[in-house]
């Protein structure tokens, strides 16, 4: 039986993409991985039950991360949508975009260590609100840049058309602009959600360890050499995005252009 090189390489790539997920899942179900065994041993679902029941803090971290990510996604998507319109039609569009790009491209952890002083002074360090505001500093510019492309000539003409038909700006927004932007709003929400969901460096600096998101938990378990709970936390981090991606692959195709 001969194998076409094309299908062999597709199989290899597929394996490379699936293996990490499998390893994480297996490790999360395991309680021992003695060298030189390839497959972790003592696999049991009870590991997951215990992790949520006992005082591991994983359940708490899950809720905090969900709440934080959802809040960041809602606020940054709406505010970015509004702000991007002003930038897109501004005569100094490029300069304003540069201003939006900078916090987005800078390393979040470096931004965080430089801003830490202010968060301490405002008593926001180590608080949920503090971490939320800090994450908005990277998510809001992202959302603004994301939507700048949406505000094209045609959108402007739609608004003008509605005005000449007797409608207000708010009416144009409600009846035409937002329906047209709905798919993009969903994608941006998803992307901003992931930015907050995945964020570690900035969260650890501003949160002082008192806002235990899932990523903080992963690092905590890694430093405690508890690879099984670390793997479990990793699964919690990874599985929801995988599910979302599987539901709507178009989100990923649309993510990059």
């Amino acid at each position: 039986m001969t194998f076409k090189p094309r299908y062999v390489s597709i199989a290899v790539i597929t394996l490379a993409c699936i293996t990490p997920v499998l390893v994480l899942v297996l490790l999360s179900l395991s309680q021992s991985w003695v060298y030189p065994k390839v497959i972790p041993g003592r696999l049991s679902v009870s590991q997951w039950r215990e992790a949520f029941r006992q005082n591991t803090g994983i359940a708490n971290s899950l809720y905090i991360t969900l709440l934080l990510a959802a809040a960041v996604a809602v606020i940054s998507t709406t505010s970015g949508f509004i702000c991007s319109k002003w930038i897109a039609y501004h005569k100094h569009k490029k300069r304003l975009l540069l201003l939006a790009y900078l916090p987005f491209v800078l390393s979040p952890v470096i931004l965080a260590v430089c801003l830490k002083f202010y968060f301490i002074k405002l008593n926001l360090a180590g608080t949920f609100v503090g971490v939320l505001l800090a994450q908005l500093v990277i998510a809001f510019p992202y959302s603004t840049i994301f939507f700048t492309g949406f505000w094209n000539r045609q959108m402007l003409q739609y608004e003008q058309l509605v005005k000449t038909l007797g409608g207000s700006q708010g009416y144009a927004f409600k009846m035409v602009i937002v329906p047209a932007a709905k798919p993009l709003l969903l994608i941006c929400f998803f992307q901003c959600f992931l930015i907050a969901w995945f964020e570690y460096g900035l969260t650890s600096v501003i949160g002082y360890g008192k806002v235990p998101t899932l990523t903080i938990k992963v690092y905590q378990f890694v430093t405690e050499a508890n690879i099984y709970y670390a793997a479990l936390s990793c699964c919690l981090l990874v599985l929801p995005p995988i599910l979302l991606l599987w539901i709507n692959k178009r989100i990923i195709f649309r993510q990059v252009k």
Partner: protein
Amino acid sequence: MFLHLQHIQKGYGTQQVLNNVTVQLPAQQTLSILGRSGCGKSTLLKIIAGIEMADSGSIYLNTKDITHLKPAERNIVYLFQEALLFPNMNVFENISFGLRIRKKSEQEIKKQVNEMVESLSLGDHISKMPHQLSGGQKQRVAFGRALIIQPPLILLDEPFSNLDVEARTNMQGLYKQVAKQYRLTALFVTHDLKEALIMGDQMSYMQQGQLQLYQNKQDFMNDEKTGVKNELVFWNGL
């Protein structure tokens, strides 16, 4: 005069786009504005509609000064080059848009939209979405959306330029019929000489921000710069 523009000036930076434009148009007449791309035709229409502001000058509609009114307060409809149908609404919803803004009852909306749809021969397409329509059908819907609110003035900015020859001819015929039926007052902008002559009751020519009005079509055709004479020479020479 129904529409009266006085000394309209508009510049962008160092470029003067409209230079002392004055227009007087009686009611129920269509003024054709012929001109090349970039001569300021669209800017003039946008200023009348209130989408852009003139640097100076006044606009009177039915003796009322509308110079500083917002677009929604002028009740002047601007038809863009593309049909610009709202992509999330079907034909019925697109046409009824202006009536909903004016908070008409559902019964009234249904009645008026159905009448409009019939007069525009769109009966079979009433539930279709914009992407299911041809270019000509989209323009009919755009027309219907504009006419249904009975605007005192309609501004048409090269509305047929994106259509093929046959659709264009059909739409020109439809416009003439509808203009008569609804007693429209309109400004019709085009860069097509033949279309300008067909569509307009009155003629004008725009060049480098200046608008020249003609007493009648003969004067328009006699003026060298409109290009009619060149066309005649060409066709006669074949």
